[in-house]
């Protein structure tokens, strides 16, 4: 391999030189340049240590799943469906898994045609496939600000430009969305899709109100724009009434008694069962579905039949009262996560106090906390790491890697109560240290400088949208980062 890369007669035999190594760089696709890991991400990787309380992950608590049940179901799949489990499956997914999906969608008050479902390898694959089907380099995606940190590298890899719209307590303001769409239109640019997580948004923790949902669907229909509705946590609602999915609202508006016209729905078993099964799905209008299917053929042919059959077997389980076992498990998760959310909210009041504001999610896994705007949470993470606690710095939720610098995402679902209290306490301590230092440097009291107006999530609302637009720099050449790569 090295030999074939090296020029003949250079007197250095088959040993690769730095120059030759740099030649690999010349072979990489342009898109890899927008796939760079930032220093912040590198630092986050360093927090994955046993002695660190991580409030950073997007983790559900899989230790709550009964080991005996897991063993029983896997044996059942192994014994009863050996050949099928070990064989390739259809790209669109196995009928048995699609039935489970239709059942989950029904629990979300959303009726779907099994023929409009594609089973995917986790919900993440839906984001990837939708980009693959829709995005040419330089195309625009409209997303919330902050947005799902895991979508940021996907959008980057497809060289999309992302316009991010600051949310408030009711999710994405649709008037802001329309203004952005207008200005994009004025610049001759038409976004390909609007990416939203309407329920208990990751990382913002807020939920899009019903009027906004209705209006979003109207806007999409008026302007013929696709919407990617990412709904991993819809069933993990701890209080309040469930709101209709965008998919169901669009289907209703279409008025044919069938599926949606413009909403692509993304679902997953990751948060209601297990992220380890890597099972997600999309429900999409058929022309879109066909492209997703073609994309998936190229990506991985099919989703693992082993896990599809496992989930299908699990959905056959009934509890003593004859109820679907999976519903009971979701109820138990809700009780657990509701309590952990409350533990975290209480810990935040106790340890962050006046020094921050934060969202109070009605469900999901995350709280978004915003500190004094002078504090950079990427730097704070360096301090927090020394104290043995980790979170996701807000910048991870912005395509430009700069906004959101005084915010952080905290996961309350994946760690026990005591660790939540301890972790939040440790972060509170480093925040107070930083504020104290500010106070000393600027001659004001640390507490006073940390005091912020209550209410409303997410910072930088005053930032004009135009500044949030524009992002990766797809046309760059070369690559190396100096200090980071030394």
């Amino acid at each position, binding site marked *: 391999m090295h030999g074939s890369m090296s020029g003949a007669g250079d007197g*250095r035999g088959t*040993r*690769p*030189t*730095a*120059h030759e*190594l*740099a030649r*690999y*760089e010349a072979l990489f696709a342009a898109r890899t*340049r927008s796939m*760079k890991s*930032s*220093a912040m991400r*590198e*630092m986050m*990787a*360093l927090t994955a240590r046993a002695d660190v309380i991580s409030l950073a992950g997007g983790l559900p608590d899989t230790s709550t799943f009964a080991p005996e049940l897991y063993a029983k179901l896997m044996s059942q799949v192994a014994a009863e469906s050996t050949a099928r489990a070990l064989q390739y499956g259809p790209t669109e997914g196995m009928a048995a898994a699609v039935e489970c999906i239709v059942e989950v969608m029904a629990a979300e008050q959303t009726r779907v045609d099994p023929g409009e479902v594609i089973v995917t390898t986790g919900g993440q694959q839906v984001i990837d496939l939708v980009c693959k089907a829709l995005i040419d380099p330089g195309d625009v995606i409209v997303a919330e600000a902050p947005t799902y940190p895991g979508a940021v590298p996907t959008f980057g890899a497809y060289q999309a430009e992302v316009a991010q719209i600051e949310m408030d307590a009711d999710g994405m303001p649709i008037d802001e969305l329309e203004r952005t769409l207008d200005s994009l239109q004025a610049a001759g640019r038409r976004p390909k899709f609007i990416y939203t997580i309407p329920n208990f948004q990751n990382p913002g923790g807020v939920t899009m109100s019903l009027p906004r949902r209705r209006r979003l669907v109207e806007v999409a229909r008026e302007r013929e724009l696709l919407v990617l509705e990412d709904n991993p946590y819809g069933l993990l609602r701890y209080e309040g009434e469930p709101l209709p999915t965008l998919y169901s609202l669009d289907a209703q508006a279409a008025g044919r008694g069938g599926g949606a016209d413009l909403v692509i729905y993304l679902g997953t078993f990751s948060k209601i069962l297990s992220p380890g099964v890597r099972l997600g799905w999309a429900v999409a209008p058929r022309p879109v579905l066909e492209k997703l299917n073609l994309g998936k053929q190229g990506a991985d042919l099919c989703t693992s039949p082993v896990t599809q059959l496992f989930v299908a077997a699990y959905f056959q389980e009934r509890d003593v009262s004859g109820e679907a076992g999976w519903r009971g498990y979701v109820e138990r998760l809700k009780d657990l996560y509701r309590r952990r959310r409350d533990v975290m909210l209480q810990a935040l009041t106790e340890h962050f106090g006046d020094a921050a504001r934060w969202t109070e999610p009605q469900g999901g896994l995350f709280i978004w906390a915003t500190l004094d705007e*002078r*504090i*950079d949470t*990427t*730097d*704070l993470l*360096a*301090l927090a790491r020394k104290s043995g606690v980790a979170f996701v710095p807000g910048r991870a939720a912005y395509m430009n*890697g700069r906004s959101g610098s005084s915010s952080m995402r905290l996961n309350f679902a994946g760690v026990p109560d005591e660790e939540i209290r301890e972790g939040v306490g440790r972060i509170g301590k480093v925040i107070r240290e*930083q504020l*104290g*230092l*500010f106070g*000393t*440097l*600027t*001659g004001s009291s640390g507490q006073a400088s940390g005091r912020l107006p209550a209410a409303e999530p997410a910072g930088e609302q005053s930032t004009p949208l135009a500044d949030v637009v524009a992002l990766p*720099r797809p046309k*760059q*050449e*070369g*690559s*190396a*980062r*100096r*200090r*980071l*790569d*030394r």
Partner: protein
Amino acid sequence: MSARKVAVLKGGRSLERNVSLRSGAHAQEALERLGHDVVGLDVGPELVARLREERPDVAFIALHGRDGEDGTVQTLLEAIGVPYTGSGPAACMRCTDKVLAKYLMREGNIPTPEFHSVREAAIKELGAADALLDVEAALGFPLVVKPASQGSALGVKFARTGEELPRALVGAFSYDSKVLIERYVKGRDLAVSVLDGEGQPPPGGERGAPRADGTAPVALPVVEAVPREEDFYDYESRYEIGMTTFVCPAELEAETTARAQQLALQVYTLLGCHGVARVDLMLDRDSGELWVLETNVVPGMTETSLLPQAADAAGIGFDELIARVLASAWRRAPAPAAAPA
């Protein structure tokens, strides 16, 4: 050199862990191609036990930042009698502490941008905040604030005005209790790697004064880091987000190249470096002067690192580079048992 058992020390708990793992992996491959018996050690609580178990003839240090570059590991290796590559504890301490290095350079008449330093404790307990205005007045804006011992871009902050300074200081204090406040020099970003060796300097290299054993430090061709966007105020992005390309040899006038190499050799000698080091400089856009910023005693060894690029430009392949760095361990090793066979 005959085959040896080499322990490549990499990883560790520094913020530059990931870069170190890549540097270590590359060095390991080269050492294997050179015919050595190589074992990679991710540095942690088991380090001493593992070294006793593996009994290497030599440790190849591919650690960046804390522990590996600040003399901690070097001191430890001396205590347990394992020869190692690169600079000794004292040079590591001098170079890793940017503030100390700057004072030493100032004393040694090496041009380095005007600076002050401040400790967190001095701000908290000695009222140092009140002295900041004097510092601002003395240095002028813009200022660069750097954690004294952080090797990567993390924590390097830029302050255009007095109002921005507290934020820059608090950010930098997240990484170190001592920070450097330095006058910002606008200009071209240069790096000169220095490598100990024997015989004639390679093409484009500049040889320093020979030592008693016949070896001499050689300054390799100058590398220039060219930011892709001319935003001098966006200090962090300049180093972070793939916004930089490298030119080697840098397109400079012959005298400037020679001067940069001479300065690098002077600093290398002044700070007592051994084996290899990389000296970072700025070519002042206004005055045309060269300023030395800092010295790295364990330069990166990844595909895109500056030292391998500079060596390559001088006709020194990666394996040869690694062989030379490895040889630096023997030259210092005093015990006869550790001398090459």
